[in-house]
């Protein structure tokens, strides 16, 4: 683990034992028997920027750094809260590591913490990759840069296969044990692979079709009933059902 994440509590962090709920933020944040510490926004900015800058190794490495910082070392949030965040992020599109990073900061300092953490988490990477873009996508890059780009670019297909192989065991386990469930899993996988290789822009339709097919196979309820779950995710529980379903359809 990098040393920068092992930093101990600092005087300027303004840690206090005040409950976040008393400040009108995330009333359910520290509803267990632990005392809440109020983490400063400056600390969130600094720590999340450090992870974003030095978190080499992809999402698993970033999630490990977040866990060590927030759960193991500073004890800002509980193991259960962190695992809930991982489970929910795995159900959502967009980068899971970024979502978990934003989620942890949201647990600590509400919306302000979430926005600051997200920006500090993502911005260093964006700056680095834009800097590299300037070099590699220049009109006339140097010969060695062209060679480096051609060499690294040649290997990315292997990375894609490796990423798929890494996800397969958990996906297979989730499918269920019956012959029909496993047959559907194989069918969905082949459909997704074929679509990615042939009809790139319409791949999302195949993903949606597979998801809806499985929903239909597992439930007799109407699809509109299922869409309400996505409406709830979007934070619109107070609105009438038809509007939540409209949001859900938009999200899908």
């Amino acid at each position, binding site marked *: 683990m990098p040393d920068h994440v092992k930093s101990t509590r600092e005087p300027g962090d303004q840690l206090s034992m005040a409950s976040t709920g008393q400040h009108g933020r995330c009333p*359910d944040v520290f509803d267990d028997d632990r005392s809440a510490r109020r983490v400063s926004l400056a600390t969130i900015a600094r720590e999340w920027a450090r992870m974003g*800058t*030095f978190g080499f190794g*992809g999402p698993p490495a*970033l999630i490990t750094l977040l866990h060590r910082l927030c759960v193991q070392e500073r004890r800002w949030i509980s193991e259960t809260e962190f695992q*809930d965040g991982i489970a*929910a992020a795995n*159900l959502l*599109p*967009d*980068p899971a*590591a*970024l979502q978990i990073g*934003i*989620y942890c900061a949201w647990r600590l300092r509400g919306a302000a913490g979430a926005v600051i953490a*997200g920006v500090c988490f993502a911005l260093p*990477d*964006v700056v680095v*990759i*834009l800097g590299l*873009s*300037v070099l*590699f996508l220049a009109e006339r890059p140097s*010969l060695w840069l062209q*060679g480096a*780009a*051609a*060499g690294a*670019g040649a*290997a*990315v*297909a*292997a*990375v*894609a*296969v490796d990423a*798929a192989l890494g996800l397969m065991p958990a*996906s*297979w386990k989730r*499918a*269920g044990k019956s012959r029909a469930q496993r047959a559907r899993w194989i069918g*969905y996988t082949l459909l*997704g*692979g074929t679509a*990615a*290789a042939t009809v*790139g*822009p319409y791949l999302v339709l195949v*993903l*949606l079709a597979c*998801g*809806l097919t*499985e929903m239909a196979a*597992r*439930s007799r309820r109407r699809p509109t*009933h299922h869409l309400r*779950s996505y409406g*709830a*995710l979007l*934070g619109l529980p107070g609105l009438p059902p038809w509007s939540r379903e409209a949001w859900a359809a938009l999200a899908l």
Partner: protein
Amino acid sequence: MGALSYGGGFVIIPLMQADAVSHYHWMTSGQFLTAVALGQITPGPLMQTVAVIGYAAAGLAGGLLAAAVAFAPSFLFVLFGARHFDRLRRSDAIQSFLTGAGPAAVGAIAGAAIPLAAGIGHAWQVAVLAAAGVWIIGLRRSVVIGLLAAGLIGVIVALAGLPVGT
């Protein structure tokens, strides 16, 4: 792109490739492969490959805008949905949906390798791909080190006078 990236950033590679290379012609196939490699080598999620594509389309402002738009769903999901994460986890409907969409996404990630491999333009790159396959898939070694080594081989090849252009 961000709202569609179920199962990881590789799911949207075919979408990005179709738009950036085939439809809008913002970059060549070789440049797209470089963009994906940069997204892997740098810290952070593969989704930031969209910043490279945004840069190719409209310079630095385009790169920043593409990154902001791609990452926006993460902020929105947490800010407006985090209070409902527990309900989301317990929803049979969503679990069923993802049980179907999940393997399709896994298949799509594997299938993305085909258009990515098709973007290779030189014979020596095929050898690099084969070596990377052995290193990353066969030996289960580091992806980042594999890509950096592939880049180093490319530098040596370029300095040796073999073709590297796209």
